[in-house]
C-alpha cells in the first residue's frame, strides 16, 4: 500500500467514524428528553468510574481476540462468517469441561484446559469450512455462515436440554464456583486477566506476521494464490490453517467469557460478538496492532449505548439501530480496502 492511498483510506475511515458519531448525536437529540444528559451518558459515562470503565474494557476483550482471528483469515483472503457459532460452541465445550473438572483440579489447570478445549472446538468447526474450500471449492463465506447457523441451534439444545440448571429460571447451565473464575483486575467491574491474554495474542500475532515464515507465506497466499503455488507454498494448508486459526480465536474468546465474566453458559449470551468481531477486523485495516483500538471503539459504542438506554429511557430498539448504523458506516468504508481489486 503506497502512502498516498493509505492516507486516503484512513481519511475515509475517520470520516466514517465521525459521521457515525454525529448520527448518534442526532438520534439522541431526536429521542431523548434531555439531550445533553444523554450525550454525557453516551460519551462520558463509560469513563466515569471504575465499574463502568472496567466493564467497557471487558467488553473489548472478546472483540479483540476474535477480531484478531478474523483479521488473520482476511489476510489469506478467507472470510470467516461463522464466528457466532464458533464462539458459542467454544464457550459450551469450555463450560462443560470446566463444570466436569470441577473440584478435581486447581484453577490454573482448569483455565488452560477450558481455553484449549474452546479453541479446539472453534478451530475444528472453522477448519471444516476451510477444507471444503480447499478440496471441494465451496465458498468459505457461505459454508462457515451456514455451519454456524446449525451449530448455534445445537448449542442451544444442549444448554436448554441436558445441561439446563434445574435450579435456575434462566435457560442456562449450572454456574462455575467462584474460585475457578479468572482473577479480576478492576474490581468491582467484570474485567479480568483475559485482557492480558488478548494483548499478548495481538502482540504475538503482530510479531508472527512481520517476522516469521508462516506470516510471510500466509501473506503471499492471500495476495496471489498462483504465485504462492509457484513459490511452492501449499495453498490448501493455509486455507485450512487460516480458517482454523480464526475459529480457534473465536472459540478461545468464548471459553474466556465462560471462565470469566459469565461463569456459566447462558443461552444466547454471546449473540452478536461474532459479527462485531468482523467490524473490528475491518476497522483494524489489516493491522494486528490496529485490532486493539478497533475493539475498544466497537466496545465503546456498545457501552455508550447501554448507558444511554439505562439513563435516558430511549428504547433499546433505537439503540440497536444506532449501533448498526455506526458499524454499517465503518464497514462500508473499510470493506473496499480488503476486497478491492486494483485498477489496471
Amino acid at each position, binding site marked *: *500500500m*503506497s502512502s*498516498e*492511498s493509505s492516507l486516503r483510506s484512513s481519511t475515509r475511515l475517520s470520516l466514517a467514524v465521525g459521521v457515525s458519531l454525529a448520527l448518534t448525536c442526532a438520534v439522541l437529540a431526536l429521542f431523548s428528553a434531555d439531550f445533553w444528559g444523554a450525550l454525557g451518558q453516551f460519551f462520558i459515562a463509560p469513563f466515569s468510574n471504575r465499574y463502568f470503565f472496567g466493564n467497557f474494557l471487558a467488553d473489548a476483550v472478546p472483540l479483540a481476540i476474535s477480531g484478531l482471528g478474523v483479521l488473520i483469515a482476511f489476510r489469506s483472503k478467507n472470510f470467516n462468517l461463522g464466528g457466532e457459532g464458533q464462539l458459542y460452541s467454544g464457550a459450551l465445550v469450555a463450560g462443560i469441561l470446566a463444570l466436569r473438572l470441577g473440584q478435581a483440579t486447581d484453577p490454573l489447570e482448569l483455565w488452560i484446559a477450558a481455553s484449549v478445549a474452546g479453541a479446539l472446538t472453534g478451530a475444528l468447526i472453522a477448519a471444516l469450512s476451510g477444507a471444503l474450500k480447499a478440496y471441494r471449492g465451496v465458498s468459505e463465506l457461505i459454508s462457515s455462515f451456514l455451519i454456524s447457523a446449525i451449530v448455534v441451534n445445537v448449542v442451544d439444545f444442549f444448554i436448554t436440554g441436558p445441561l439446563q440448571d434445574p435450579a435456575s429460571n434462566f435457560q442456562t447451565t449450572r454456574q462455575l464456583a467462584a474460585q475457578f473464575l479468572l482473577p479480576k483486575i478492576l474490581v468491582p467491574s467484570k474485567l479480568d486477566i483475559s485482557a492480558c491474554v488478548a494483548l499478548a495474542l495481538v502482540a504475538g500475532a503482530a510479531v508472527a506476521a*512481520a*517476522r*516469521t*515464515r508462516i506470516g*510471510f*507465506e500466509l*501473506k*503471499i497466499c492471500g*495476495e*496471489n494464490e*498462483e*504465485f*504462492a*503455488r*509457484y*513459490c*511452492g507454498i501449499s495453498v490448501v494448508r493455509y486455507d485450512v490453517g487460516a480458517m482454523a486459526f480464526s475459529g480457534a480465536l473465536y472459540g478461545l474468546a468464548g471459553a474466556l467469557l465462560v471462565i470469566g465474566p459469565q461463569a456459566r453458559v447462558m443461552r444466547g449470551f454471546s449473540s452478536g460478538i461474532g459479527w462485531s468481531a468482523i467490524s473490528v477486523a475491518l476497522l483494524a485495516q489489516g493491522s494486528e496492532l490496529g485490532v486493539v483500538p478497533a475493539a475498544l471503539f466497537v466496545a465503546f459504542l456498545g457501552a455508550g449505548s447501554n448507558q444511554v438506554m439505562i439513563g435516558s429511557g430511549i428504547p433499546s430498539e433505537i439503540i440497536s439501530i444506532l449501533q448498526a448504523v455506526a458499524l454499517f458506516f465503518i464497514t462500508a468504508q473499510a470493506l473496499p480496502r480488503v476486497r478491492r481489486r*486494483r485498477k489496471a
Partner: protein
Amino acid sequence: MIAVRMRAVSKRYPSSGVVANDAAELEVARGSIHAIVGENGAGKTTLMKLLAGLEAPDSGTIEIDGAPAAIESPANALKLGIGMVHQHFLMFDELSAAQNVFFGIEPLKGRWALNKLGVVDSATLEDRAKKLARAYGFTLDPAVPVGKLSISGRQQVEILRQLARDVRILILDEPTSALTEQETHVLFEKLSEIRRAGHTILLVTHKLNEIMRIADRVTVMRLGKTIGTYDVASITESDLSCLIMGTSSCEDADRGNTLRPKGEIVFRIEGLATRPRAHGGLKLNDISFDVRRGDILGICALGSNGLEQLEDALSAFLVPARGTCRVGTRQFDLARIRSYRALLLSGEIAYLPSDRMRRGTALSLSVRDNFIAPSRRAYFRRGLFRGSSAQGATAQAISDFDIVARPEQRADELSGGNLQKLSISRVFSLPQAKILILCEPTWGLDIRATESVRERIIAARDAGASILLLSSDIDEILALSDRISVLSRGRQVLLKEKSAEMNRATLGEFLLGTRSER
C-alpha cells in the same frame, strides 16, 4: 497536414516518482505510419496512453488535426478519431468476431419504439462486419467466436473494432510481439491498406527491422524524452539502435553457435500427454525430448498450440494424463504429481513462468518480498526473518540486473519490463539449479535488457546448465537454441539440431502446421 502534435508533454507517476514523459514532443503527419521506439520505460506506451485518453498529462498540449484537444477519456479520444490496440486484447471470447467488432454500436432492429428495445439485427451486423473487413483487405469469418481465433485473428478483430468506430488515428502497441513471420507480413499488408485509406498509424515497437520495412517516420524516445524524429528512408538500422541505447558502440554481440561436444542427458521428458479438457479442447500429444548438460533446447509454438500446457505440465500446475520425467537416474511419473512437485521444490530446477503478472509476482507486495519468496527459507533463521540479508540480496539483484526499482517499493509500481527482470534475477540467483525451464524469458523486454538476458542464458549454458527454452518468439528460439523443437496444435512436429537452413520462414511452416518431420 499534421494529424497529431504533442508539445512538451510531461507525465509523472507520483506514487513511484517515475517520470514517464519529460517534455516529450511528437509530430505525426496524416496518412503516415509513424513508429515510436525506445527501451522499456522510455515512455513510449505512456505517451500513447496520453493520446488515447487513458492517462492525463501533467503538463503540455496536444493538438489533433491542428486544433487543441483536451483528451480526458478514451471516449473523448474516440470522438477525436483516436483508438488504441493494446498488447493484450480485451474481448469477449464467446462472442463472434462481428459481435466483438460492433460491440456497443450494434445495428438494431426496427425503427422508433421497436428500436429502443435494443434487439440486435444480426444479419446486418454480419453484413457490415464483412464489408468492413473487405474494405481493408481482411480475410475474417465474422461468425466465428473470437476465442477460437489465433492471436493474429484476434488482433484483426481488435483493429477492425477501432475502424468500425471511425478511428482515423490508430495506435498499435507492440502488434507483432506474438506473431509469426507470415502473420507479421499479413499484418503489414493490412496496415498499408489502412494507410492508403488516409488513416494515420502510430506503431509502438521494439523491432527495428519492422520499422525499416513499414514505417515512414520514426520517433526515438529515451528516459521519457523524445530524442528525435527521423525519416526511415534516411536512417540505417544500426544508427537507430545507437539512438535508442544512447551509446556509440552498439554492435550486436555475435554469439556464434559453435558445435561443442554435448554432455550427458540431464533432463528427459517422455510420452507427455494431457487430457483434452483444458485450453479449448487442445491436448498435448506424446511429447518427448531431452536436454543435455550445457545444452539449450528451444521449444517454439504459436499461442494456443500447446506451449502453455507444456509449461503448466512441467511446472506441476497441470496434472498430465501420462508422461515420465527423468532427472539423471531418477524417474518421476508426471501423472503422479506429488513426487514431481517435490523435485521442483528441491531447487534443482529453476523455472521462469511466462505469465509474470499472475504467476511470477504478488503485485501488492514489495519488490523484496517478491524477490525472496521462492527461496524464502534462506531468509528465515530459526523461524525469524533476516531483514537485512533479504534487503541486501534484493539490492544486489536490482543492481546486477539493472532493475529500476527499490527493494521496499510495491511490485505493481514497476513497469512490465522491470517486473520481468525481477523474475529473471530470481531464477538466476538460485545457485544449485542445474536445470532451467525458461518460458518467454525476454517477452516485453527492450533491446538492451533482451541482450543481457540472452547473454546470461548463454553463460549459464556454457557453465554447464541444461536449459529448456519455451518461447513463441521465433527470433529468440533461433538466436539461443542448440536444438529446436516445434509444437503445432499440441503435436511435436520438429525436433532436431539447429542448422543453417532453419530460419523464420522454415520454422514458420512448422509452426503453422503445414510441415512436419516427425
